[in-house]
């Protein structure tokens, strides 16, 4: 008999579908960090990211019986979250132009001027990300911020590698204007 911590994803999915609601907690624990990190990178706000992750997990629970590859339920949940994040960004683009993100400046011992300068750099980068389409932002974040290989991203997002590369290339082209100060 397996202890809860040893259950595979497929076993957890089976248990949840057979009525063990609390087993779903294991999936929340296993994939909460991954989903939240992606949501935060996509939308840039901790509260929005938490709401999106919660919605993704609840949707995943309600549709769990439609998950065909139960051993890869983590990737399936990630896809639900990724789609939610893109929907969120689309609605945000329609409804408001983002102000500068609030930036928590880490205590590095820099003086206030250096800290402000670093905060401004961070703001500029995040504003540039806000100008990408949700699809370009997703591809760029997964490739260059998460550092995942194209093949892995393509498999999770159910895209061809060629289509994915095109999105990353377009994102980089759109960000080219930032390059001057890094030469």
């Amino acid at each position, binding site marked *: 008999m397996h202890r809860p911590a040893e259950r595979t994803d497929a076993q957890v999915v089976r248990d*949840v*579908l*057979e*009525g063990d*609601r*609390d087993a*779903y*907690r294991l999936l*929340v*624990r296993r994939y*909460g*960090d991954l*989903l*939240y*990190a*992606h949501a*935060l*990178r996509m939308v*840039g706000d*901790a509260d929005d990211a*938490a709401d999106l*992750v*919660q*919605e993704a*997990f*609840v*949707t995943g*629970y*309600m*549709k*769990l*019986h*439609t998950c065909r590859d139960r051993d890869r339920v983590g990737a399936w949940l990630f896809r*639900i979250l990724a*789609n*939610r994040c893109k*929907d969120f960004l689309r609605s945000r683009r329609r409804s408001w132009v983002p102000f500068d993100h609030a930036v928590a400046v880490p205590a590095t011992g820099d003086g206030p001027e250096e800290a402000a300068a670093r905060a401004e*750099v*961070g703001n500029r*980068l*995040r504003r540039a*990300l806000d100008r990408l389409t949700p699809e370009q932002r997703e591809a760029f*974040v997964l490739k*260059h*911020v998460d*550092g995942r*290989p*194209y093949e892995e991203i393509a498999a999770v997002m159910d895209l061809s590698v060629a289509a994915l*590369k095109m999105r*990353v*290339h377009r994102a*980089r*082209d759109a*960000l*080219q204007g*930032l*390059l001057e100060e*890094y*030469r």
Partner: protein
Amino acid sequence: MNDELRRHLDGEIPRSGLDAELRSEAEAWERLLDRFRVEVSGGSPPPWLEQRVMAEIEALPAPGRLHRAVAWLVRPHPVRISPLTAGLAVAALVVVLLLPGGGRTPAPIGSAAPGQDSGQAARGGGPAAASAPNGARATPTVPVVYVQFVLEAPGARSVAVAGDFTGWDASQPLEDPDGDGVWTGRVAVRPGVHSYMFVIDGSKWVTDPHAKRYTADGFGNRNAVLAVAAPSA
């Protein structure tokens, strides 16, 4: 962007394979991408997130109830029966078969006959309208009401209804044939009080904004409530 530089940034060519000018450009890109990695950090989820998810799930119906019912039906189940009970059952069957007319298929019980229209308008529910289609496909034994669901969702690629009457499966698609963003569809629903939501693009669950009643499912999310009256005889 130069193709060689693009391939380098894609991880296909090492920096040493670039000429001096491109190598300088590649280094600038690498500094910029490093900066993105620092500034666009992921962070850890708040500690209350797990509890919030589980509390919301507690208020929801179990996933795939229909799926579980089918699984139960196809799974073998041991049946324990005493010899006395089995003998009495066989005797009762023999008596039924020997009666005049025994063994014939009984007439269906219910208010709707095949081919008849069993639909009616649902009153007081959230959907914008409810009516019976011509030639409604009613089952012979279970009265159903055809309820028309309407959702304004401009820009959606697909809209479906999911509720307790579909096992919370988004299996009832709505249609927007004229592309005006108003999605409609008729769904057969048994009389009673039902909860439902709309599912946009296969993953975004939204509450019917025009429902007359709602039920809270915890932490601000609501299911729309639909009351369907039984069809008149």
